[in-house]
């Protein structure tokens, strides 16, 4: 069974209906698309090299040449924000993808199989989620070493238990439903029952969680790099930029903090609003 075949199981999205029912989420989706597009096109459209310093033009306020001003080394803030969008989005997407795939796999298995393995996994998940997540992420990056890859792994690990939990409970709730039993009677193997029957039916819930989670992952990555963990120095990243800019706030150089901070806020807000909208839309009670 191919992936495309798998995707056709879903009812074709009706964009008009989405906009009418969830105008806020549609707006958030448009905003996110714009941010993603800017990030993708960053190398083509950024007016300056985000790494090139130009000390004579340091700390210039926003003007026609430098839309978002320049930082203490004369680097163009707008170009750096575009480059940072690329980095932050890819960190968030890869971290969420890793935890989603791993978590849903483990969760589906536990939820379907039940028994002692499920109970043991459940307790491990409880222990993992009992830690303060951000502190755990800090500890993980500190132990694994300061690199972007490790930042991704740390973010993935702290999200992992939530996907296990959601997938497990969604699968366990459906395991004994009529259409699953009917699949057994139709001679369907357990693997196929999970992949072709249960997974497509729990995917909406997972997608909502992932959307909300993406915003959180960006915040997490920015937070860690704000503290100097994960991102090596010259690399542009929103958290790092806010951290650097904070030094110049007192002397009135607001553009160093406001623009990256604003981008961070808008992106996370968009992810959250989109997640809320999707949740309302996919809730069977609101379905016509």
């Amino acid at each position, binding site marked *: 069974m191919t992936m495309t075949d798998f995707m056709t*199981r*879903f*009812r074709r999205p009706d964009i008009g209906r989405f906009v009418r029912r969830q105008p806020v989420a549609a707006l958030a989706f448009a905003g996110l698309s714009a941010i993603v597009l800017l990030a993708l096109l960053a190398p083509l459209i950024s007016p300056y090299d985000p790494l090139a310093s130009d000390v004579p033009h340091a700390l210039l306020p926003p003007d026609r040449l430098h839309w978002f001003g320049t930082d203490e080394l004369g680097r163009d803030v707008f170009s750096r924000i575009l480059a940072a969008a690329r980095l932050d989005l890819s960190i968030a997407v890869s971290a969420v993808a890793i935890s989603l795939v791993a978590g849903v796999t483990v969760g589906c298995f536990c939820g379907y199989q039940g028994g002692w393995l499920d109970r043991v996994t459940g307790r491990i998940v409880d222990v993992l989620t009992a830690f303060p997540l951000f502190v755990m992420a800090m500890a993980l990056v500190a132990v694994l070493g300061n690199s972007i890859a490790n930042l991704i792994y740390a973010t993935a690990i702290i999200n992992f238990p939530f996907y296990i939990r959601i997938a497990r409970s969604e699968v366990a709730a459906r395991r004994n*439903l*009529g*259409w699953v*039993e*009917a*699949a*057994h*009677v*139709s*001679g*369907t*193997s*357990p693997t*196929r029952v999970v992949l072709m*029957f249960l997974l*497509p*039916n729990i995917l909406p819930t997972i997608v909502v969680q992932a959307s909300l989670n993406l915003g959180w992952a960006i915040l997490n990555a920015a937070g860690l790099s704000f503290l100097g963990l994960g991102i090596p120095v010259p690399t542009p990243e929103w958290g790092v930029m806010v951290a650097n800019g904070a030094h110049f706030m007192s002397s009135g150089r607001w553009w160093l903090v406001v623009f990256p901070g604003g981008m961070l806020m808008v992106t996370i807000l968009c992810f959250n609003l989109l997640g809320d909208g999707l949740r309302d839309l996919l809730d069977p009670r609101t379905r*016509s």
Partner: protein
Amino acid sequence: MTKPLLSIRDLRVSFVSDRTHKDVLHGVSLSVERGKVLALVGESGSGKSVTGLTTMGLLPRQATVTGGSIRFRGEEITGHVPRSLRGAGIAMVFQNPRAALNPTRRIRDQLSDVIRAHGKVDRAGLQARLTELMHQVSITDATRCLNAYPHQLSGGLCQRIVIAMAVACSPDLIIADEPTTGLDVLTQKAAMDLLLRLTRERDMGMILVTHDLGMAAQYSDDVAVMRHGKIVERGTPEALFRSPRNDYTRQLVAACPTATSLLEAPEATVARQAAEPVPLLEVRSMVKEYQNGFRAVDDVSFVIRPGECLGLIGESGSGKSTISRLVSRLVDPEGGEILFNGTPISTIPAEAFYRASQRRQIQFVFQDAAGSLNPRYTAYRSIVDPLLRMGPVPDGEALRALVVRTACSVGLSEEMLERYPHQMSGGQCARVGIARAIIVSPDLLILDEPTAALDVLVQAEVLALLERLRRERGMSYLFVSHDLHVVRMLCDRAIILRRGRIVEAGRCDDIFRAPQSDYTASLLEAIPHFSPGASV
């Protein structure tokens, strides 16, 4: 003529959403008098519940009354039922008694709330009132019930409590919306007898909303048959059911299984008698025990011969569904043997049975037809799936042709095949479920209350369909049901189960004519009579 307690005239109700406007009641007129029961009978979607809810002022937000009037004790209450009337004037008994009670509070507290909400009483007065109520609804161990939480009581007791709540404030009118759905025949009889007695004793009026013609016939003084938001016929039960004037009523009456009704295939009996020496299915002292030591199925043995239909009758909790799942190898028995065509199949664990060659020979039709279809599969996908899994798969065009032919044989048109479960009616879902089971040409079809969720007319069609398929394809059926009349219509032999044990087994005709056990006799007696004159 005295003034009626409740009179509804030309009531019109519409459901309005963003862009749609749907009229659900088109001018309903009826009246209820003190001490009398009016039954509102109709299929799902006929508007009978909406009529009840409108009277109570409990319409959902998107529904509006667009015309007509409701007068209660001579007072106009359309659209704005005063709070003081709810409970004290008009009370409601809901469908699911357990859901109508707050699970986290004791019965005593919930009943006290209702009593206090309509007048100040002191502690002693409250206790006296509670005791009196318990007595009225015939609960003998009042103290235990009052101190219990809803989950500690049986469904029947919960329904009594709900009735007690309804009568707590001495209402003049009770609206009972399918008050016994989900209750067993015996419990149903007790609850209905109680409601009828209270109506007579307290000189209240009652509206009984039901889809069960037998119940309407036995417990009402007046019947109104509803269809598409209109009352198509009304009259006394005797007149209405003996000689219905309206075509629709006539259809309903004909479709209702009674002690004497037959399926339109009398010649089928010829095929039934062809007894063969080797039974198709043989179950020997089968036991299913749960972890807490509860025996759901206890030492049950029976055989099904090729081409035979065996009925399995029991109330909820009698183990009939467990037996159907054991035989279809969805769960493993703790003891005993299941032989299919002489080969033991209980030795193959349930999770590996999907690979067994007998899988395609034993198929299952589920009780909740809509719930047994994958919500993300079209009807076509659902029907074709067993064939793709267990083969043999004809190639290309032939596959589609086979699915269409099978769908056609269960009365589904080709364009239905592209629909998803939520786009189909209950009857259509049931047909998809049957098509899915028969497409692999099984020898044994296990039917777990396949018509329990269907309206009377649809049930009659599905039963006729099952009988025809059995005749055409020579399948054997294990037919599980709580409805004795339905079993008698379809089956040659039947087994009566109680608490996991067989209390009676034999030919249907014999069981119905002269039941051997007291339990069977009381079951037969408890079925609401359809025609009061005829004996069961």
